[in-house]
């Protein structure tokens, strides 16, 4: 259809499968992250006994219970709300998460669309969620929601910049914006002539990785950057009026986006589905098609662990501190990183 989305136009099945995978991956990812980290890891870290109780091993059906609870709750629409916008907002947020997964590769052939500007695309569509957040905040006709929406917008715009800039270093070093290309680069490149572990870009782009993780944390509006939804100040901010299934959408959006960002970070900095051994695009293609998703998943879980570790550990910033961190620290650091990467790239 469109010439750039390199979808095999023998469509039918291929396209259908790909769509289903993308549609399935977000709720599934949200589920996994919610279960593993929100329920289990947090409970352990903060000694919460509740979520550990229901079911046998570590309270494994707490999550099912939570899901059922959300589904059976009443769908409330505030009286003065802007109904269409109110209804549309969660969908916009979740949609932006879905779109990110279009370009993330999980194997030599396991990718929906290996776009030429994959990284850029991923960052572009992930920025769409801001619109949804603002819509929700505004349409709720509630001042807490509006304040939360404004805070979220200010925060997401501010951290969008370091997020993009942090990735630029990777792009410069790999010489491509195609995520497959970046994965290939990381498994093929050598460190001072030693190719044994490839070149996971976290080694040379550690600054970029750190900035990316901090900015991603802020993009996710997770603690310590959770001012937009701060329960104690804004009673959940822009989500305050949402109930039941719509709230579940936001929830899926949040954890799905966390899943997406960990996938991005794993791909950009940890080598994605790749391994430095073998010939993924040649003889070992099938092997890597099978192995890749598992490898990627493992790396994603590592990244996600770091994210949630920070989330459950640190207290909340103040709003001005948050902005200062973005503009006075992360952006300059990211810029210096770009400059250094560029110079070194030319030098070597």
């Amino acid at each position, binding site marked *: *259809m469109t*010439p750039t989305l390199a979808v095999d136009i023998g469509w039918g099945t291929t396209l259908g499968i790909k769509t289903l995978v993308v549609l399935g991956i977000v709720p599934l990812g949200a589920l996994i992250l919610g279960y593993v980290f929100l329920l289990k890891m947090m409970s352990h870290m903060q000694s919460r006994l509740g979520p550990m109780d229901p079911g046998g091993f570590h309270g494994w059906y707490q999550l099912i219970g939570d899901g059922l609870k959300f589904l059976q709750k009443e769908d409330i629409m505030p009286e003065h709300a802007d109904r269409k916008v109110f209804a549309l907002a969660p969908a916009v947020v979740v949609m932006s998460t879905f779109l990110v997964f279009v370009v993330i590769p999980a194997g030599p052939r396991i990718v929906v669309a290996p776009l*030429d500007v994959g990284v850029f695309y991923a960052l572009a569509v992930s*920025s*769409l969620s801001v*619109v949804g957040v603002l819509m929700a905040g505004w349409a709720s006709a509630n001042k807490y929601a509006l304040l939360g929406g404004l805070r979220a917008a200010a925060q997401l*715009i501010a951290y969008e910049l370091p997020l993009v800039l942090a990735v630029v270093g990777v792009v410069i070093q790999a010489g491509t914006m195609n995520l497959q290309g970046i994965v290939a680069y990381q498994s093929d490149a050598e460190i001072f002539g030693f190719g044994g572990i490839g070149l996971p870009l976290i080694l040379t782009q550690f600054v970029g990785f750190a900035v990316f993780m901090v900015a991603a944390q802020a993009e996710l509006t997770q603690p310590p950057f959770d001012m937009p939804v701060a329960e104690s100040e804004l009673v959940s901010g822009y989500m305050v009026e949402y109930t039941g299934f719509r709230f579940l959408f936001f929830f899926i959006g949040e954890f799905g986006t966390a899943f997406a960002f960990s996938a991005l970070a794993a791909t950009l900095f940890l080598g994605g589905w790749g391994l430095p051994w073998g010939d993924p695009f040649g003889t070992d293609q099938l092997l890597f098609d099978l192995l890749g998703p598992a490898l990627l998943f493992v790396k994603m879980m590592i990244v996600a662990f770091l994210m949630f570790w920070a989330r459950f550990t640190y207290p909340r910033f103040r709003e001005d501190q948050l902005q200062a961190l973005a503009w006075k620290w992360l952006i300059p650091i990211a810029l210096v990183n770009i400059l250094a990467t560029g110079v070194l790239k030319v030098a070597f």
Partner: protein
Amino acid sequence: MIAQNVVFGVLAAAMVLSAIGVVTTKNVVHAALYLVVVLAGGAGQFLLLGQEFVAWVQVLVYIGAVIVLFLFGIMLTRAPMQPKESLDNDLKWPGLVVAVALVGILGALLVDAFEDTEIELEAPTRTIEVTDAVFRTYIIPFEVVGILLLAALIGAVVLARKD
């Protein structure tokens, strides 16, 4: 080719309707959201033309930042949820006449000039070609735009400061 034309038609219809929404709706926030649709449609058109990079720049810059800035501005200037009065001034009808005349003239001119010229797309433009052009042929405009952005940044800060 047909598929492309269908996509074009759908996108174009959505864009035009949303654009009319932008200039007629009574709700400022709705106008911004309509604008999102127009711009997203524009990005779609760019994809259709095989110009991938600029499409995603449009999404990132326009939808991710500019629209958010608009919404921000709207909310900071206390837009009412349900405005009672119209958002149009008394130039409505003359404005309509002039705009329609403008579209008419432009349309007639374009039809006359290009008639049935086809766009022959060989392959989508590769990003590397664009970046090479920006950093080789258009390096000075690029630098100038950089300075412009700096000036705009400083200008906006100075204007919006309270003291």
